């Protein structure tokens, strides 16, 4: 079973999601039926966890409205297809119970994709989201691999898909739709695939040259830059998917003009994911940079009624002046003042513009003030240097 969720009776613009997570590679290194030539494809532990996390995020409010997750009254969740490959059966929690998912083998993915595509095609103006997490390689064009890649000798890469070609084809059949692909995989260039272009995977759907582009907009968000690698910790949600979920949950939110609505659009989503990964790069052993591209202004993927919050961390140096000092923050939440004798002060505030400053209660230094600081989630940090 791949249909995890399907809402009936919705009218207007709707959102259809397809999630694919591949951790088990039957013919890869350490697989149950390992091939002599594996092209370096090993078993992965993060993609099933990452895919489940994203499924849980999309379904959250379906369990109870207050649970964090996907929200968009202008384009509510209408369907979710999911396939996950890992050792043993894969079950996910759904409203009213559990569902066992089909493994992400080529035939299953194709069936689920066609079901998802049919819904998108039938729903003029819909939002279509495809998420993939697993092995990927590039020839300049990006390819993603399913559980049974390497199965066919001589056509080793057949059980995968051509990411860009699939997206370009969809544009010609999804009237007024907005199509978003989020690809959490490596993008290293594969010499084997470059030298055998005929062996590369095909798109999940091929369009004819006759068809014009009829979709309204599309976006493509990659976990890694061209030729680069995507990372995750063993058995944990990947760095990209963590940043993706954070960004969708509000980090990428901007306020709609003239309305108390915060919306996440693809351009901002790409930027927020990039910033979160950059922030992690400061301490991570290996750097990862995402890449995104957007065609045409899109409607919001997510809409929220609450402003996203940022953690503001304020400190001052030299340390010996902290004892009789306070830092403050002034903006839409009023004036917030904190003593900083114990070190950096953290305050959560809604995104927006704030004046921040530091002053000494013992007149040990001149007041410091920064006016109109643009506080953007997830974190804003500033250290006042006072003399």
């Amino acid at each position: 079973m791949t249909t995890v969720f399907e809402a009936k009776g919705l009218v207007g613009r709707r959102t259809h999601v397809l999630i694919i997570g591949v951790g088990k590679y039957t013919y890869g290194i350490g697989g149950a039926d390992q091939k002599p030539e594996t092209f370096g494809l090993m078993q992965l532990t993060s993609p099933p966890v990452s895919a489940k996390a994203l499924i849980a995020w999309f379904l959250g409010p379906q369990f109870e409205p207050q649970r964090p997750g996907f929200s968009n009254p202008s384009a509510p969740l209408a369907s979710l297809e999911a396939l996950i490959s890992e050792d043993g059966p894969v079950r996910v929690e759904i409203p009213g119970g559990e569902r066992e998912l089909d493994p992400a083998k080529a035939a299953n993915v194709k069936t689920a994709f066609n079901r998802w595509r049919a819904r998108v095609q039938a729903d003029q103006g819909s939002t279509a989201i495809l998420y993939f997490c697993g092995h990927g390689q590039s020839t300049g064009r990006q390819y993603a691999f399913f559980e049974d890649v390497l199965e066919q000798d001589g056509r080793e890469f057949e059980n995968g898909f051509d990411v860009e070609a699939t997206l370009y084809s969809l544009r010609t059949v999804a009237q007024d739709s907005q199509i978003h692909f989020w690809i959490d995989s490596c993008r290293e260039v594969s010499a084997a695939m470059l030298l055998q272009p005929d062996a590369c995977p095909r798109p999940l759907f091929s369009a004819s040259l006759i068809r014009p582009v009829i979709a309204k907009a599309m976006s493509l968000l990659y976990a890694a830059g061209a030729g680069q690698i995507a990372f995750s910790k063993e058995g944990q949600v990947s760095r990209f998917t963590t940043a993706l979920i954070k960004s969708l949950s509000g980090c990428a939110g901007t306020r709609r003009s003239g309305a108390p609505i915060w919306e996440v659009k693809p351009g901002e989503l790409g930027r927020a994911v990039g910033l979160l990964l950059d922030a992690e790069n400061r301490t991570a052993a290996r750097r990862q940079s995402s890449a995104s591209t957007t065609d045409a202004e899109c409607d919001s993927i997510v809409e929220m009624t609450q402003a996203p919050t940022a953690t503001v961390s304020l400190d001052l140096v030299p340390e010996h002046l902290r004892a009789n000092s306070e830092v403050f923050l002034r903006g839409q939440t009023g004036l917030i003042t904190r003593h900083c004798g114990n070190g950096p002060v953290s305050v959560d505030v809604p995104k927006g513009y704030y004046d921040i400053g530091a002053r000494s209660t013992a007149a040990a230094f001149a007041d410091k003030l920064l006016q109109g600081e643009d506080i953007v989630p997830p974190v804003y940090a500033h250290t006042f240097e006072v003399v």
Partner: protein
Amino acid sequence: MKSLTVRIRHARDLRAMSYRAVYPADSSSFPIRVEDPTGGVLSEGVAGEYEPLLLTFADPESHEVLYVKLLSPNGRSVVQRVHYGPSTDALVQFVIGSADVPDWARWASPRVASKLVQSSEISSSARGAISRFRNVWVKLWRFDEGSWRQVAIAPSEKEAIASAKQIELNLQEGSHLLQLGSASLPWFFVALPARGVCRVLLTPQRVMSTQDIPLQVVLTSSRPEAETLLEFLSRDELGAAGSIATYLLERKYEDPTSAIAGAYYLLRSGGWREIPIWWFDNLYASFPWSSDAALILLVVSLRRGLTLTSEIETAYQMLSEVLTRGLPMFAEAHRLMLEASTVLDQARRAPEDEGGAAMTVRLLAPEGLEATLATYAALAAARAEMGSAFAFYGDFPDRPSANRQTGAAPERCDSPEAGENDFEPLQTASLELGFTSSGNARRARARRVSRKTATLLKDL
């Protein structure tokens, strides 16, 4: 009703009164966004040094305090707060750059990630010192009669400060590439503007992403709005690009850079649907040496759908023509080359039950299509990030490579038929792709024919 005026002033040394005649490209315009305290966008527009932005707000109660944000093409933004008080008018002025940046480098200030600084502020060993790259070699290539030839670098002007070096080149019409590399800098190519005076500024780049090259190459052909637009497109900043594009599209295109930048924006924004095909035909015909113009027309044609067999034939021919015109100038072309080659490649491979006319398409595909597609694939795999400029890694212009090779400037070994002073292109080079060749490359008696050598950056 409240009003807001946003002015741009470029910091400059007023003693250099004649600077504008010499360096007009620093007078660029910038997207401006006016936001309320929660970050909600109230208004957007473009402000330039000679065209301030004038805005009015109908709801004064909720706009006591506003934040005016200038979006810079280097990815940064600058914010100023406006507090109206009892007044109904406000003026905001942004000063671009600093007065201690020399006039010749001022145009680049909004486009470089690092600060341009004078000698007194930086030691030669510092991370931001251009002298770190003194042993970088540089070559200039020109596409001439169907092949790439190395030509001598003859700058008409040279300038330098501690953090940057600039050369001015006077280019003929057509496709040019600048190639740089060293023992630690991977060999890469950057496409230069089409014709006329082109300024090339080189400055160390703060490495932010895994894709950044540590030496930033910034180019101008003195078309500031078009170049700003392309920078925003390369950063996927469609909103900011839209403001500049509106400003640009209201003016006549009189030069290829502006026309091509406008067309690239139309393709990104969806605006291509509203533009008649003859506009793109004119672009293609007006600049017959422009690879970008051919690519733009090809992609528009594909997006409109090809209904006649003659249209399909033409599309495949144009896929090849993009390359026979040289190479594109702008990074945006990487996306469109991928799109065009993917769509045309897949159309001939599609099963009959999906794409329908695959058999017909296969019959219409011209000879040499495989080599053309291989070149597209090689360029996609070799893509380098250098702002809005079309850039890729490789050793020779016709051998883009995913491998990031380093070392002394490569010299081509080729057949004895090659000219004394030129490099004959390898016919199968594009298939090599930086990896082990399939062995089809011409196995002529190799002989070194290079007479031109690379120039070291320190000698420029």
